[in-house]
């Protein structure tokens, strides 16, 4: 298996404040890697280091085996980048903007012009190819940004918050487009976002970053399991009646961390699933469990949980 991006203890400090701290992660060939984290977690800084636009304070990042800092040009030749809040030259048309990009990539006009038309068609801007970008809406600019990334035929694309500030329908279109182009042309994609729900369904693997640390990495399932293993389970129990010794007996069960009581409802925190033992204890104490349910962590909760921890 080939790793497209490899970082080795990548760190970046701005004026002594660590924006990215000892970051290690890898991206596989032709996967969609979700780079998730709240605002200010260090996502954009990491991306800029991958592109060689910012020098790491320490550590290394390699893209296709090239050191991103020393061989930035080689990296940028194969990498397409959609910056956060992408902007264009407002008095140039969509076509002219893309042509400037292809020219900067040294692609001759003969080759690039059909490609530009094709890509504008694909992102749904074929009717406004000769309109000045200044008249574009935010969503249109974002789609043009996608065009600017893929017009240069990259092997690897970095999309920084491609769905930020876009309406739900637009988000859907953009995500579909990403999946389609990635699968069709075998392009590896690094997708950064602070909206887990929006992007997790199209990501093969994700990395969660907060305060410059990568705190979890892997497929969504793996991350979910990992967190459930690590975290306590919360049981909501309803009993028929509360006998005097009941609470103490439950507390004595190995693994129970905490118990809260209100009427005949208990809220029990334990480090694993102890439903069997607890119901047995309840019965032994002369009461009956009417209802026991576990409170599952939703993805959102996992996410929030992680962000708090970091």
């Amino acid at each position: 298996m080939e790793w497209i991006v490899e970082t080795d203890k990548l760190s970046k400090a701005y004026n002594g404040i660590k924006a990215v701290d000892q970051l290690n992660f890898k991206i596989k060939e032709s996967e969609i890697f979700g780079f998730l984290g709240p605002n200010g977690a260090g996502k954009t800084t990491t991306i800029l280091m991958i592109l060689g636009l910012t020098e790491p304070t320490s550590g290394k990042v390699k893209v296709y085996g090239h050191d991103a800092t020393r061989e930035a040009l080689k990296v940028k030749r194969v990498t397409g980048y959609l910056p956060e809040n992408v902007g264009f030259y407002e008095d140039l048309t969509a076509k002219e903007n893309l042509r400037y990009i292809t020219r900067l990539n040294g692609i001759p006009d003969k080759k690039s012009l059909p490609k530009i038309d094709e890509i504008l068609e694909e992102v749904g801007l074929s009717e406004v190819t000769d309109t000045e970008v200044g008249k574009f809406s935010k969503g249109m600019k974002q789609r043009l940004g996608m065009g600017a990334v893929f017009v240069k035929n990259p092997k690897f694309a970095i999309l920084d918050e491609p769905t930020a500030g876009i309406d739900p329908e637009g988000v859907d279109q953009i995500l579909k487009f990403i999946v389609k182009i990635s699968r069709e042309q075998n392009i590896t994609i690094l997708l950064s976002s602070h909206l887990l729900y929006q992007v997790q369904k199209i990501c093969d693997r994700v990395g969660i970053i907060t305060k410059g640390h990568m705190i979890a990495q892997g497929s969504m399932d793996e991350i979910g399991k990992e967190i459930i293993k690590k975290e306590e389970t919360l049981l909501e129990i309803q009993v028929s009646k509360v006998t005097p010794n009941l609470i103490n007996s439950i507390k004595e069960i190995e693994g129970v961390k905490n118990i809260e009581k209100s009427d005949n409802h208990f809220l029990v925190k334990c480090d694993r699933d102890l439903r069997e033992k607890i119901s047995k204890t309840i019965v032994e104490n002369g009461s009956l469990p009417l209802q026991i349910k576990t409170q599952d962590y939703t993805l959102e909760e996992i996410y929030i949980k992680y962000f708090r921890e970091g």
Partner: protein
Amino acid sequence: MSRLKVVFWKEFADYFSSRRFLILFIIICITGSSITYIASQIIGQDITKASVGFIFLKLFTSSAGALPSFTFFISFFGPLIGIILGFDAINSEHSRGTMSLVLSQPIFRDSLINGKFLAGLATVAIMLISIILVISGLGLSTLGIVPNLAEILRIGIFFVASVIYIGFWLSLGILFSILFRRTASSALASIAVWIFFTFFIYMVASVIADQLVPVTHTATAEMITKNEYLKKMIMRISPATLFEEIAVAVLNPSVRVFGFVLPAQVKGLIPNPLSLGQSIMVIWPQFVGLIALMVICFAISYVIFMRQEIRAT
């Protein structure tokens, strides 16, 4: 190199299609040609009295009544051209969000700033060439005098000096566009420097000179000369002074010294016009100084730009 060309042509096209260039160009053309027209009328009357050499050059140097001469117009208005072309070169890329888009393409970072600077210089050069041609045409038709080779060469040197002079202000504008993230701040800062070097440098120079070499009513000629000399040297910090001296000497072949002249220096002097080579020798220090100012200013912008962090926000 090819990437630099791409940036250059794009910026060049941008400058030429921008509204501000059009406005500047119209203003300069109208002012320049009206100044020369009136100047040519006055020169035309003078010719009949005494025919002196280098009449064609007078088109650029004579001031007509309330109107300043063309060279003064350039020394005064040129900075504004440079500043207007340069003040938002870099920070507008940041605020538009195009900076990271462009720099993530396989180009060296300096291609961007070099391309912008060269495109600005080319724009200035074309602007000046056209106005000089307009003036020359006007002169040809109203005066009916054809410039000789020496005059053409002198105009050529004046043109180069003007481009470098405006180039300094262009690079100053670019420098401020790197230092300030807001275009309004960089424009105001550039204009402040322009006002200082154009209007206040004279006062500052006088104050400093008077402090160092006080001129009282008992002052000797030596001290007065020293004071004047000092004042002149301080004023030469300003590119405007350097440019004015170059313009005066190159367009007026009889000029051989700047500023204060003692009677002893003029004794036995034959008031003949200097040859082109001699005039160049007179302006050489100023010329080098002007080039140095432009290069230093651009070098500073270059270094800062290369080290600047690129954040999306």
